[in-house]
């Protein structure tokens, strides 16, 4: 196995163009596991840890852009205020050691339905910036996940950065697992309120072949939420939202949980997360007023 070590993005893209079969590796928290268990044997690894620009971030008034190889720990510490939902999800990834190495770019590259950050990226209208020697393109998160562990990348492309609007309202992420750390989600849910657009984004993980947005549930919120003079949500509305979220799931029975439990738990997570987020929004509106 060859180990390619580019020192700049340009060099990395050239290498990837020359060796499209090379597997990019940053934190290695997914790739190394696959190698260790011999699930894959790539002819080459493309080490991105020396490409400095992939671990940088910038922001303006409305948008945050961060490099694909920015470790979770830095994302939490440096961007947590602007991207609260992503920070909550990132805190549930693995252990401190894994968060020191693992990256959102890696989550996207692996495209596992159980990846913790996917629902947040979907709910928050993230855009995945990818590049190749041929040029760059922007892929909305909602078009990025194509199947179980399959994404929209071309063989010569690398994920360079992730672009998200700064949070304009409360965001929540919740997952069910069998323990509190080092756990692969049985199911997960994210919601982002976008008061500036009078709508909310919501998405599920570990409950379908890909992470997915739950559009019917989002539309329901557009109907019922009064952004101008926010009222307490009736339990029946929260429950209906939970049902709509669960109905969008197509989970399987596996060693981590049954399909029936996943659907049920998603409904509970969605109902609760909506409650927390909406209450936080009302609280914020009250204190502004």
């Amino acid at each position, binding site marked *: 196995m060859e180990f390619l070590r580019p020192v700049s993005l340009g060099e990395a893209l050239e290498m990837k163009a020359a060796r499209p079969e090379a597997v990019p590796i940053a934190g290695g928290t997914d790739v190394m596991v696959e190698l260790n268990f011999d699930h894959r044997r790539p002819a080459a690894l493309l080490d991105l840890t020396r490409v400095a620009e992939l671990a940088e971030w910038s922001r303006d008034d409305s948008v945050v852009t961060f490099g694909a190889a920015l470790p979770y720990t830095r994302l939490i510490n440096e961007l947590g205020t602007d991207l609260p939902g992503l920070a909550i999800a990132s805190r549930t990834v693995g252990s401190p050691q894994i968060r020191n190495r693992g990256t959102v770019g890696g989550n996207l590259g692996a495209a596992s339905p159980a990846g913790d950050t996917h629902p947040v990226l979907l709910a928050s209208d993230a855009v995945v910036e990818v590049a190749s020697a041929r040029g760059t393109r922007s892929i909305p998160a909602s078009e990025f996940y194509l199947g179980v562990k399959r994404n929209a990348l071309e063989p010569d492309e690398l994920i360079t950065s992730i672009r998200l609007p700064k949070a304009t309202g409360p965001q929540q992420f919740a997952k*069910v697992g*069998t*323990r509190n750390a080092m756990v692969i989600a049985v199911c997960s849910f994210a919601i982002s309120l976008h008061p500036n657009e009078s709508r909310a984004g919501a998405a599920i993980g570990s409950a379908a072949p890909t992470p997915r947005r739950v559009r019917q549930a989002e539309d329901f919120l557009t109907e019922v939420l009064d952004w101008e003079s926010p009222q307490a949500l009736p339990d029946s509305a929260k429950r209906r939202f939970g049902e709509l979220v669960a109905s969008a799931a197509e989970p399987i029975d596996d060693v981590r*949980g049954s399909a029936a439990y996943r659907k049920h738990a998603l409904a509970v997570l969605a109902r609760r997360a909506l409650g927390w987020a909406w209450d936080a929004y009302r609280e914020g509106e009250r204190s502004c007023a």
Partner: protein
Amino acid sequence: MTATAEPEVGKARLRKEDARLITGRTRWTDNITLPGMLHLAVLRSPMAHARIVSIDTSAARDMPGVVAVLTATDLDPDGEIGMPCAWPITPDMRHPRRPVLAATEVNFAGEGVAVVAARSAAEAEDALEHIEVEYEDLPVVLDMEAALAEGAPLVHEDLGTNRSALWVFDSGEAGTGGDVEQAISDAEVKLTRRFRQQRLIPAFMEPRSTVVDPTGPQLTVWSSTQIPHILRVMTAMTLGVPEHKLRVVAPDVGGGFGGKIAVLPEEMMAALVARKLGKPVKWTESRSDAMLTAHHGRDQIQDITISATRDGMVTGLKVDLLADMGAYLGLVGPGVPLLGAFMFNAIYKIPAYRFACTNVFTNKTLTDAYRGAGRPEATFAIERMMDELAAELGMDPLELREKNWIRHDEFPFTTVAGLTYDSGNYEAATERAKQLFDYDGLRREQQARRASNDPVQLGIGISTYTEMCGLAPSRVLGSLAYGAGGWESASIRMLPTGKVEVVTGSSAHGQGHETAWSQIVADQLGVPFEDIEVLHGDTQFSPKGMDTYGSRSLAVGGTALVLAARRVLDKAKPVAAHMLECSVDDMEFTGGKFTVQGTDQSVGIQDVALAVFAAHDLPDGYEASLDSDATFDPENFSYPHGTHLCATEVDTETGRVSIRSYVCVDDVGKVVNPLIVEGQIHGGLAQGIAQALYEEAVHDESGTLTTGTFADYYLPSAADMPTFVTDRTETPSTTNPLGVKGVGEAGTIASTPAVVNSVIDAVRHMGVDDIEMPCSPMRVWQAIQGGAR
């Protein structure tokens, strides 16, 4: 030299050994490198049950760095070598031969089929995939009841059955109590429950490793084992190596939890390969292999019937077990359920008792000792039954226990299982635990949450446990057909400069022997803690020992140490008297000094050591040595006990369980080092809680282990553990001069039922009276769904 003023025993000394163990700057087996050493890798069967049609090793032999590729045909051409089982629990026990490498048939996924010896570990590993094995499928049997059914596929065709043995204890027949069938049929109340002890993986930190050097005068075996002494005897008997030509070393060992009480096929394989090739060899397993092939623990189905009077006096207890042995019998595996046989009656005065255990073969990794070995299973069953009985009778579960337990003034007490508990004070431990826990306050909160229909319900779980440990009186072991005794040995060597070498036959693998043993000897001999070195784990300087398991080291090995120290003093006394020119009868010994009674004339033990070394002026006929050995064989077990109270919050919508508070008050007798005791309790609790909530080894229908990594086998992390509130009562054991009891397994034994009782208590009002372990969110939710129906 000054003697220590305050006693060492009882001090919370930091552990001497920690710096080297924590930093890894020490000798783990895998750190050992010998000149010319080859590395071994084992090809393992992916099939749970198959006939081996052919093995082609030719391509692997041509791989770079490969020196040899060997199979059973090469290592044991006549098929004579079988792994030892030291506990034939019944005369008719069926004991299939477990080969070093499978020759004609594989019986569980993970069984070794071939071994590669290469110049590097990586080359050995790489060569494995060039070995071609053709298998022919055989039917797989995984479930114990299915295995016992008529016409079931057989794990070992030649045995004609999957039943290994049936072992029965009946108090009516033994004369220790009444007839349980009578008690049950006469009962005002009776309850029957089935509990499943899921299969667990010991998950020690250091994977197993062994190095064998055939080049010296002796065959030297280093191994990451709990039992170097037993391994020496067993290797001699298994391979026919004369025992005096065999040296076994357990260097620093990174944990075991019972998982390294084993004589491994890989150890025998390494010895055979080393002898065949005439070169040192090393085998170190991967974590994956450790999960798959190191013996597993628990895996029992327990059918329990308890009978009682309507006012809550237990009248009888009947236990029917199925115990999954896996594909073969481990070193002590068949006897593990027997260690529980005497513990189902626990701390209660039960007039009639019957225990029957059927050991069953399945196509899975073999099971054997795992922290608590037999006692956690028993304690779980009885403590769950006491809660169920309390619910049935509408009594407070603590009140029911108190009504039935052995009162402090009734000790010593001979139980219905025939053991004599020497001491205990269940009242004191329970009282203290209730205070620390705020039992009454939490019960009130529980009522309030039920009344308000809170989605998060509160449960209170109780476990008032005892256990038998300090294994063990040799006569008792003999009566149970165990293959060895239960004594322990110690040697104390007084060096010329007054320093002390202590050799113990109890081989530590993380327990802190070096610190605790130093504290004991410091007090006995009155020498400074720092002047004592504790040596263990090498049969060259420690030829006698029974090693470390069953919470035995302190109660048995610590006592041997005290006896040896007393002999040192007996030998030193006449020399001291001679040096002080007085009569032996006028000498007294305190604080490391022999003093002439009523004078200030004295001589220190360390000065006596120098005088004995010089031997210039000793009493006539004196044998010039203070060195002393002792062997201690306990007359009885030690019986730690305690009360554990656990409060859990159960999210009835998601099934999530969080431990809100955990209080334990343990009575482990006299404490040598409170820090070590605390560490043992914390680790024990974590391991017991893990069984209750997290861990389970799962096989799919083909017999493949699907929980072979830490991503799927949910070992809890610190983030899953509550802050433990621990306290102790101190009722000294009367079965050893130190007054100590074992503590290594107590936390694990006690905590599992406390947690499960708590989870069930939280949702009992929703119709739930049992949840299978581990109580994962999904299982709890499903139980609530089932209860509501």
